[in-house]
């Protein structure tokens, strides 16, 4: 069993969001970078659990990013990946990124490709579906539970308005969210071991991007809260009805 887990780097969830260069670039000065939570907590940890129940499983990590992504990918290796591939490119175009991942996936002949549900910075929730189409594989989006029996995967996933259970033959692409696994903290042994695990850097295959970010914009600041005295909550109901007209 060979699993490819897609790992992306995002600003820490508490990072201040600001832009520079005439609002065309994210202000990354002083920003702490983390593994995108969906990739780390759900996709990667579930892959590690599958390896724990079948030690012949091999987990490869792939990231499309520049050298500043290396600390992130090392942390993912410390949690439990076997080796990592970094495609040396900087892009926010989903099609470009998906094409790079698909290329790695083709070369490695994986049984399973796991992605996170979405990146918490660019919020595309697109890469998994695109990779699946590029590989012509089934795509199960938004998985909350994943079990494997031989080459048959049983997956619970979220659909609009509810949940459903799918049975699918490998190979396939799955996007992972809450429910798949529980967050883990890397231990000392993992951190030491990660240093000697292979991290291969490859150059991107030439692909034309479909989109580009022209500029960023911050939402207007809130006017400030209007406080209603605690001994008169009825006044809140009146305001919401008569003034804000939301109830």
């Amino acid at each position: 069993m060979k699993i490819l887990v897609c790992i992306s780097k995002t600003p820490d969830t508490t990072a201040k969001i600001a832009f520079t260069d005439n609002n065309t670039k994210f202000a990354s000065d002083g920003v702490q970078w983390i593994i995108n939570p969906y990739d780390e907590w759900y996709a990667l940890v579930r892959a590690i659990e599958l390896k724990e129940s079948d030690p012949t499983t091999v987990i490869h990590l792939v990231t499309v990013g520049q050298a500043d992504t290396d600390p992130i990918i090392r942390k993912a290796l410390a949690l439990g990946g076997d080796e990592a591939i970094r495609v040396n490119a900087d892009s926010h175009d989903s099609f470009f990124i998906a094409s790079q991942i698909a290329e790695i996936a083709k070369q490695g002949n994986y049984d399973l490709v796991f992605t996170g549900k979405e990146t918490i910075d660019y919020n595309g929730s697109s890469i998994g579906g695109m990779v699946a189409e590029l590989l012509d594989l089934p795509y199960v989006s938004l998985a909350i539970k994943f079990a494997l029996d031989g080459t048959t995967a049983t997956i619970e996933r979220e659909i609009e308005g509810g949940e459903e259970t799918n049975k699918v033959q490998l190979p396939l692409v799955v996007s992972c969210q809450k429910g798949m696994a529980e967050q883990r903290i890397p231990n000392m042994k993992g951190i030491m071991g990660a240093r000697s695990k292979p991290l291969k850097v490859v150059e991107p295959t030439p692909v034309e991007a479909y989109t580009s970010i022209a500029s960023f914009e911050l939402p207007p600041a809130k006017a400030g809260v209007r406080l209603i005295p605690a001994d008169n909550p009825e006044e809140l109901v009146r305001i919401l009805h008569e003034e804000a007209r939301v109830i």
Partner: protein
Amino acid sequence: MSVLVFLDQADGQIRKSSLEAASYGAALAEKLGVPAEGVTVGTVANDLGSLGQYGLKKIHTINNPALDNLDAQVYTKVLAELATTTGATVLVFSNNLTGKAVAPRLSVRLKAGLVAGAVALPETSAVFTVKKNVFSGKAFAHVSITTPIKIISLNPNSFSIVSKEGVAEVVDFAATIDQSKVEVTSVNKVVGEVPLTEAEIVVSGGRGLKGPENWGLVTDLAKLLGAATACSRPVADINWRPHHEHVGQTGIAIAPNLYFAIGISGAIQHLAGVNRSKTIVVINKDPEAPFFKAADYGIVGDVFEVMPKIITAVKKLKGVA
């Protein structure tokens, strides 16, 4: 050339988020001077002609029970065939869970740039540029699509439904339907509840409510207001509430007209999922709770004292005994 809107259905009813997508598609088509059309996949809903009121001229139905379950691979093939046959140049989806499964695949198949999470009509005068949410609602990006065909997934609750007179022509489209490689062994749809992402009002509770036994304060108010219920992450993690209610950076992102936060501190990761709400009301006993900075209205007080009074006042307002 045309704008083609994917119409997602639930038990024969077109979803509200798809009606928003239809209104958006019609407004965009008008801007581009082309017709707006729609497509339904799977067993057909009743009276699709009435969708003309949202500005759609024609509805293509790919009416086959084999398509009743969502398989992104199968859907992609039939939608690509339709888009190519009809010469659609812009495709519009709702950025709901169906859109998230299908639009990316279709983007690859049609070699069409995708913007997922759009919040406004595109700028079309120079380069085709779409405003979308980024950084989990903390900012917007203006994204240019450079391919001839374009796909836009519209965030639910970010474009108002516009309806006027009009009847759409309904035509069946005979697509080649592949055998699905995904077997659906069970489906569990929540019936009767307002789906969180489509709800106009959301009442949400946090750890300040102390335990699941007190959730009546949330659900009673929600019922009175016809609202959906939500919760903070720790509340779902300790199983006070089901995980699908968890909103925030790692949960669901919502943008209702009214978000009612009860006993929630307003951590930055929570705000990331709710800060697009049009009006935010916060009830918290701690005046320093960060949520007050993001709120429009607030009460600094104990939820166990304040909420029963609010519920009584809303009952009175709604004429409920």
